[in-house]
């Protein structure tokens, strides 16, 4: 499975990265802001994108909408510190394949990937 990680925190990126590698998937790219995330989503054609909801230049929900509208085949898993019911609902209704609330265990990420793939 080819995965693109989008998160502005280096710590968070390495957490997700380790979990994904551990489970035998491939990390094809990392993005630290919305603009690069969209660029890489088009360029790398990943199977899965893990998307942080609050990025320095955009909110994750906007990135999600752009990618949905472009009909990319990538499945998007939102990884967010915001765990409110309404936020989760909004994410899923905008086309996210899953919604993970931080903090999470590596297993949560791995499970989510096998679930949506």
């Amino acid at each position, binding site marked *: 499975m080819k995965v693109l990680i989008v998160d502005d925190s280096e710590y968070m990126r390495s957490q997700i990265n380790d979990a994904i590698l551990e489970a035998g998937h491939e990390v094809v790219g990392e993005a630290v802001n*919305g*603009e690069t995330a*969209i*660029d890489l989503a088009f*360029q790398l054609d990943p199977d899965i994108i893990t998307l942080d909801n609050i990025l320095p*230049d*955009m909110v994750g929900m*906007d990135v999600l909408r*752009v990618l949905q509208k*472009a009909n990319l085949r990538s499945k998007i898993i939102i990884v967010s510190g915001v765990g409110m019911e309404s936020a989760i609902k909004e994410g899923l209704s905008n086309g996210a394949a899953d919604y993970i609330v931080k903090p999470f265990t590596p297993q949560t990420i791995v499970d989510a990937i096998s679930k949506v793939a």
Partner: protein
Amino acid sequence: MIEKSKEKQYREMFFAEAYEAHEELDKLFTVLEKNPEDKGSIESIFRITHTVKGNAMALGLDPIGELCHTLEEMFTYIKDHDMKLDKEFFGLIFRANDKFGELIDTLKKNGEATYKGLVAKLELYLDKHFRTLESNNVNSEPPNSSTNNESSQELEPSDTEPDNESESNQPKINFSDQVQIPVRKLDGLLNLVGELIIEKDTIIARDQNRNSNMYKRLNRITSDMQYAVMDIRLVQVGLLFNKFHRIARDVAEAENKQVNLQLEGTEIEIDRNILKIISDSLVHLVRNAISHGIENPEERVGLGKPQIGTVTLNACNEKDIVLIEIKDDGKGIDPEAIRNKALERGMISEEYASTLSDKEVIQLIFESGFSNADQVTEISGRGVGMDVVKKATESIGGQVNIETVLGEGTTFTLSLPSSMAVKGALLFEQDSQEFAVPLSFTEAVISIRPKEIHKVNKGLMADYLGQTMLIVFLKDLFEMEGLDSFHDNGSLHKTFDSLKANDENINVIIVNYNGRYMGLAVDKLLQQKEIVEKPLTQPLDKVDLFSGATILGNGMVCLVLNIASVIEKLFSERRSVQLSQSMMN
């Protein structure tokens, strides 16, 4: 179907135009940021983005097409609805123009372009701030829909340009009065002309009837041709100056300064390659002027200066030379600070420092090893120091001067040859061989009696117009193993010691470099001539006594003296403290 070669040509034309558009947009965005109500700029931006979009789509350059489409839509709203333009907006459009530049570079090389992220951001901005208006009174293309699909239809780039509409409906083919020529072709042409002139001189020199009318005509025609070729290569300095609107804006923004950039003499013309060589230096000088020269707004107000600082780029002609000034009304350079820093870095000794005038101290900023500033800011400290600026300027036979008044500002002046091809030179003979000195370094030619020359320490001195001046016999320099050995005792006295008191007068060429004068004693003065100087090839390019060579009419190679490096070495403070000290008194 367009033929392959035609298509290639169209692409080249498109990219050339796109570069111009990219630059123009930087300028217009800067103007608009200062005055967001400026209808003229808004109109121009709209027109440019519209044209570029159309052409890009026609050529299948979708990334540029999409980017410009989004910009065009933004400016349609602004044009029709007087939208309020905020800081975020300007951040975005400047970023968009950077991306535009990037895309030109990438697509030109058929590279892979990423741009979707930025377009998405622009679209989001449109959604949030502009498209919230009622869509039925917005007269624009369907926002956001299928930017890709319209490419094939939208071929006529000038369909909305009003000036064409008034003309008849008959299809009409317009031919541009301009031709675009790649620089390498011009370089080739210039080289050929240089060789033609040398060949012509050789032929004429060999013929007994060298004053015949036929040769006069040949001389005139080749000389006219040479000037014509030089003229083709001239471009207006405005071409470079205009890029600085954006640079100044970015530096000022990053440093929290307020700066107005003034351009003067943009119509002055200079060889395109010279402009290219000094462009990095100019960027460095402008950055420095803003980040080190101009004070913070509060500080300026406190000092009773206008809150907004001014940086002026000015070009003017002086004889064959183009002067480019970079002037700021900032804090000026403090000679004490320079003196201390040079001491701290061990560039000069305490003892020597005390003998330097303020003016000489300021010159130390051009020394390598001075500029790698302690606080490397993103703007000013990129390892490019003033020494690099100086080297670049001198590599084309130019000079850098600096004038600074504490509290009032600093002016850097680059004196540049307007053309690299041909330079005036003074030919002279030394040890039965011909050499040349570029006229840009010569001040005067005098003849002095041996007894007017006096030994001082390691050097020789003579009076010139009431001032003492260092005299060097070129023969002595030639006999040294390298320029560095002139400080060996007596090495500069050899020829002088062999003279007899009643010997003939000595020919001296007075040369000047960066305000330092010296007299070069040579065997015989010949003539003044225009030469085509060619750089020396390896390993001769390491010889610092010569900058290049030319071929004379008699077919002989004539070496061109490198005055800058000779004076530099002789006056270099660490090696020749005593010598130059005695010079300055």
